[in-house]
């Protein structure tokens, strides 16, 4: 014990006199370990604390406070009591000592065992003895922390101080300048208000002491280590200012004043803060200031120089309207919402009628913002405005004016429909006739510019259940049908198709009875008939296209689907039978429509089941018939590559969401069809049974092409669906991959094989088949003609395995990298790297439930980029471009975040790739560079010279895409720090004069944008 005692004295001595700073930690450790107590420390400090020299006393207090900060949680209640009294007393001491005393008090403020009443006592002493704003920033921060700590744990005690606490704090923070402290202080004020501390007579003072910072004007110093932004302070202060409606009478005049200032940021902050206020303030708080607020907002919207301010102004008006709508009306009180809206209507309504349309849009926007506040506001505004707009529509004959009026009407109707849920009667009943007359007249107007708006307006009206009569709905559908079939303006036609899609969900039967027959008739019309009809202005080819799009668009409801899908299939059937036009383009369009329908119904199980049961067998049946018919005739349209390719997504979309039951049933039928020619899938039994899609080198070779449909089906099924006869199927596919004649057949087989391998569970089957595959690829690679097939299979299998992290993937990738030096295959292998890393559009993607590990690209990158770089370095000159091309494909597919850290090591290689004459390499490298250019100024610094001259020379490349992307890169450079760019400004501007005269408009467009941006660099006003 005595030993410990003398050790303590020794440590204290060394700290105070010997100035050995680390001794305080040793003392604290001693207290923590129970070797001595805090009171013993005080005792040991005794002489020092009584020293006449304030510096020595400060040193003593510093030691004690440091110990307390380490050990406050171990103190007993008694110790705390003694220490608090001691510390309070020390506050009266010399100012040199105060910072250390405050540190100690902060430690004590964190003690759970602080006896009742002492918190108040500490605060009283601090308020009384310390002039906070004359302290250093860090010490002021300590005071705020003491207060914060007490507010957290001693709320009741502090509240017993009444308004004195608030007043004390006001004095503490008055004059605070440091952003770090302000953030804490704002938080304290917010707590004072929201936790209902007594404000007493000090509401205005509390407002003054905080609102003097509004609006926040703060720019963080460069390289600020604290990371406090202007935004932090704005949010902190705003929380204070909007925390109580008791501030309203002081704050609203200030807000109006700041809104009227010339400083854009002040306007913006004021408007945003006003919006926040509206959630807290009530009618009576706003009452006096409504006219001032309104005129400021109106001015901003009418005259603002910035869209951002206009948007905030409108949002503020909506917030005001919502706030006024919220208050409960007492019978005798004035309805402020009503009078507020009246003044808005008074100021804006007449602008809507001015024949020359002055300020028409700003006024409409203001009225719509006000109407957006509540259903009551909406009702009031629309009841006033809509009759006026209807009247105006009739008074203006010019189409452009009418269009504007109609667009405004549409805006108000949309608002109406938004509030419809809350109010059954939409209040438009008496306007219905007039509205219908206006819209129906607009949709038939001779000027097409009205049609598009009219269609959108009709949609809004017809979406309101029960508003339009059934005969009106019939008329709407008839108009839409007419626009789809006859409209010359393609945008209006697209709008009509879109509207049909929306409305078909609500009124399916009307569409079935009125629109479908017309579309159907138009699809079935023979070209000859159409030529006789001279009045038609839209070419027949477009009409057919539009009908198909419309059929797809309206197929949003299963009842319509059951009508439309057979129409589409029937059309394909007629093509197959040689009736109608045997035009591949039409069949491709139909497949696109069928695909769209499939996507729309994926989530509707009934529709999906119907789709699956009808579409899948029909397509297979038609194509199998086509493929098994006498092959002497010319190739059937349905077997063309492009047609089959268009069918793939139709089947895929129908299968990805199948239930396991449905899927299992179909999969066995489909596999049986392909493996054994078993046609039980089809209901009609007139099919020949000579379907042998895996047979190579025979008269049935065209049947090979149908493997693409097998692929669409089996590769898109959920992973838990078991594929029957998988081994046999895989073997057939493998054979076809390596021996098929047409590229379409063998690449479909390779893809199908890869799609199945990707999902195939781990196990013997997979191991066996992969072993065989690897051998056969090796054999295939030896000689033509099988090399191209082998490489196709290799890339697809590699992809399938890379995605699922299969151990064999590394070996296969190495094989591909090795082939980059192959004289004959090198260039095409290089291109295939793009296929390896990019998303596959048809199969082996997420939608098809492929086994894709997250971050597979990153992993591929990490494992293979070093190999590619090394391969590049050691390759001979002719082969180098292959490595660069492969590399740029890999980099191009990577997310920017992954690429950034690697950029320094890769940049010089990328620059070399830019000099490679291969335009694919150039384009791919440029595309990869563009998003990175503005991100890494430090890395680019050393290369900027070479980079700029290479990019500039690529703006004259023979390939248009290269020129465009090079210009985009030069544009991206403008985001770099100015000092890096200015030395090159004149040179770049001069060099970009040439692409301004490019023969291609798209290049000129980029050149203009890029050059104009470079002109602005370092120039005033930019």
């Amino acid at each position, binding site marked *: 014990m005595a030993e410990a005692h003398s050790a303590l004295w020794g440590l204290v001595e060394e700290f105070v006199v010997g100035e050995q700073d680390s001794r305080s930690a040793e003392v604290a450790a001693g207290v923590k370990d129970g070797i001595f107590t805090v009171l013993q420390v005080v005792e040991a400090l005794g002489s020092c604390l009584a020293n006449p020299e304030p510096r020595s006393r400060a040193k003593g207090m510093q030691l004690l406070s440091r110990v307390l900060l380490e050990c406050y949680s171990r103190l007993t209640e008694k110790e705390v009591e003694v220490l608090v009294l001691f510390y309070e007393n020390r506050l009266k001491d010399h100012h040199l000592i105060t910072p250390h005393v405050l540190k100690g008090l902060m430690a004590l403020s964190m003690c759970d065992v602080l006896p009742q009443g002492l918190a108040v006592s500490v605060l009283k002493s601090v308020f009384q003895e310390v002039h906070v704003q004359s302290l250093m920033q860090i010490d002021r921060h300590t005071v705020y922390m003491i207060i914060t700590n007490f507010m957290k744990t001693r709320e009741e005690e502090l509240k017993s101080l009444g308004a004195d606490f608030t007043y004390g704090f006001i004095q503490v923070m008055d004059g605070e300048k440091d952003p770090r402290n302000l953030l804490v202080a704002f938080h304290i004020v917010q707590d004072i208000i929201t936790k209902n501390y007594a404000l007493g007579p000090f509401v205005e003072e509390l407002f003054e002491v905080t609102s003097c910072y509004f609006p926040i004007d703060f720019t963080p110093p460069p390289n600020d280590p604290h990371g406090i932004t202007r935004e932090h302070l704005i949010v902190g202060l705003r929380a204070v200012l909007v925390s109580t409606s008791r501030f309203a009478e002081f704050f609203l005049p200030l807000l109006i004043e700041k809104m009227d200032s*010339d400083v854009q940021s002040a306007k913006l902050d004021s408007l945003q803060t006003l919006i926040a206020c509206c959630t807290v303030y009530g009618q009576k708080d706003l009452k006096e200031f409504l006219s001032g607020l309104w005129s400021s907002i109106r001015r901003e919207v009418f*005259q603002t120089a910035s*869209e951002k301010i206009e948007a905030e102004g409108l949002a503020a008006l909506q917030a005001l309207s919502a706030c006024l709508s919220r208050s409960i009306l007492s019978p005798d009180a004035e309805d402020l919402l009503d009078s507020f809206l009246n003044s808005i209507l008074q100021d804006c309504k007449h602008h809507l009628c001015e024949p020359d349309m002055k300020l028409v849009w700003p006024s409409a926007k203001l009225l719509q913002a006000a109407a957006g506040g509540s259903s009551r506001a909406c009702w009031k505004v629309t009841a006033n405005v809509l009759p006026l707009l209807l009247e105006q529509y009739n008074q203006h004959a010019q189409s452009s004016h009418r269009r504007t009026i109609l667009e405004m009407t549409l805006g108000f109707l949309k608002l109406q429909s938004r509030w419809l849920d809350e109010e059954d009667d939409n209040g438009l009943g008496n306007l219905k006739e007039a509205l219908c007359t206006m819209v129906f007249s607009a949709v038939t107007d001779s000027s097409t510019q009205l049609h598009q708006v009219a269609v959108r307006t009709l949609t809004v009206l017809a979406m309101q259940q029960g508003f339009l009569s059934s005969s009106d709905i019939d008329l709407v559908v008839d108009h839409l049908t007419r626009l789809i079939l006859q409209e010359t303006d393609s945008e209006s036609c697209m709008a009509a198709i879109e509207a049909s899609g929306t409305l078909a969900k609500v009124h399916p039967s009307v569409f079935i009875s009125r629109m479908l027959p017309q579309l159907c008739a138009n699809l079935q019309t023979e070209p000859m008939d159409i030529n006789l009809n001279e009045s038609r202005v839209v070419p027949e080819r477009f009409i057919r296209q539009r009908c198909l799009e419309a059929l797809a668009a309206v197929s949003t409801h299963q009842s319509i689907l059951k009508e439309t899908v057979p129409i589409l299939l029937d059309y394909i059937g007629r093509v197959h039978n040689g009736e109608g036009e045997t035009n591949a383009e039409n069949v491709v369009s139909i497949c696109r429509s069928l695909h769209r329908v499939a996507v729309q119904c994926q989530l509707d199980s009934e529709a999906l089941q119907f789709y699956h049961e009808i579409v899948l067998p029909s397509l297979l049946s038609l194509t199998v018939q086509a493929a098994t018919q006498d092959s002497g005739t010319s190739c059937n349209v349905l077997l063309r590559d492009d047609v089959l390719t268009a069918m793939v997504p139709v089947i895929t979309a129908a299968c990805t969401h199948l239930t396991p039951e449905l899927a299992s049933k179909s999969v066995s039928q489909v596999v049986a069809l392909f493996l054994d020619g078993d046609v039980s899938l089809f209901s009609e039994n007139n099919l020949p049974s000579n379907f042998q899609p895996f047979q190579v080198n025979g008269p049935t070779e065209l049947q090979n092409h149908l493997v693409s449909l097998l692929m669409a089906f089996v590769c898109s099924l959920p992973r838990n669906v078991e594929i029957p006869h998988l081994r046999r199927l895989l073997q057939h596919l493998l054979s076809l991959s390596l021996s098929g004649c047409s590229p379409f057949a063998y690449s479909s087989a390779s893809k199908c094989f890869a799609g199945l391998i990707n999902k195939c569970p781990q196990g013997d089957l997979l191991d066996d088949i992969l072993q065989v595959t690897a051998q056969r690829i090796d054999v295939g690679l030896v000689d033509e003609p099988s090399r191209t097939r082998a490489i196709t299979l290799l890339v697809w299998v590699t992809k399938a395995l890379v995605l699922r992290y299969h151990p064999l993937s590394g070996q296969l990738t190495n094989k591909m990298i090795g082939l980059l030096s192959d004289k004959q295959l090198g260039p095409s292998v290089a291109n295939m790297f793009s296929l390896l890393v990019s998303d596959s559009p048809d199969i082996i993607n997420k939608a098809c439930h492929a086994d894709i590990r997250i971050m597979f690209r990153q992993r591929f990158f990490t494992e293979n980029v070093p190999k590619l770089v090394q391969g590049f370095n050691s390759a001979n000159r002719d082969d180098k471009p292959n490595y660069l091309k492969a590399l740029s494909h890999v980099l191009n597919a990577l997310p920017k975040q992954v690429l950034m850290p690697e950029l320094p090591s890769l940049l010089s290689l990328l620059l070399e790739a830019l000099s490679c004459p291969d335009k694919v390499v150039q384009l791919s490298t440029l595309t990869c560079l563009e998003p990175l250019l503005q991100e890494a100024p430090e890395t680019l610094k050393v290369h900027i010279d070479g980079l700029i001259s290479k990019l500039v020379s690529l703006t004259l490349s023979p390939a248009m895409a290269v020129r465009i992307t090079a210009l985009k890169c030069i544009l991206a450079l403008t985001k770099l720090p100015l000092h890096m760019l200015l030395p090159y400004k004149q040179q770049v501007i001069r060099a970009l004069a040439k692409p301004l005269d490019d023969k*291609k*408009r798209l290049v*000129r467009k980029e050149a*203009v944008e890029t*050059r104009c941006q470079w002109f602005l660099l370092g*120039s005033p006003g930019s």
Partner: protein
Amino acid sequence: MVGGSQLENANPLIYRRAGERQVTAQEEDEDAPDRIDDREIFDLIRCINDPEHPLTLEELNVVEEIRVKVSDEESTVSVEFTPTIPHCSMATLIGLSIKVKLLRSLPERFKVDVHITPGTHASEHAVNKQLADKERVAAALENSHLLEVVNQCLSGRSSA
């Protein structure tokens, strides 16, 4: 020249913007040259901001496609612009912005003439003469205040 806080024409007429030019198949064809046409020139200037309003020259109808004439073969461009009011003191500045935008955006072979639409401004001749004087234009662009205003007219909102 600017800086007066009072707007001369506080309530201008606002016109609808033309849509983005649709890209045609020919424009995507590597080999087919696309001539510089009136619409292309119009697209260069329609998004210039008015110095006073938060609106583009197109929205104020100060520039219109029919008042743009270009001959790619002869390397000449002529643009007429229509000030919103006949006494608009911003006319020279607007004209200067149009001229600068065209000088920065067109191949150097082009001769660019910018005029006021005949009969639409009180000082038509004086403004036209100033805009045609390349020495004055060059000197104006070395004046950082003027350059600032011009750059603001040219940078502002995106063209979309």
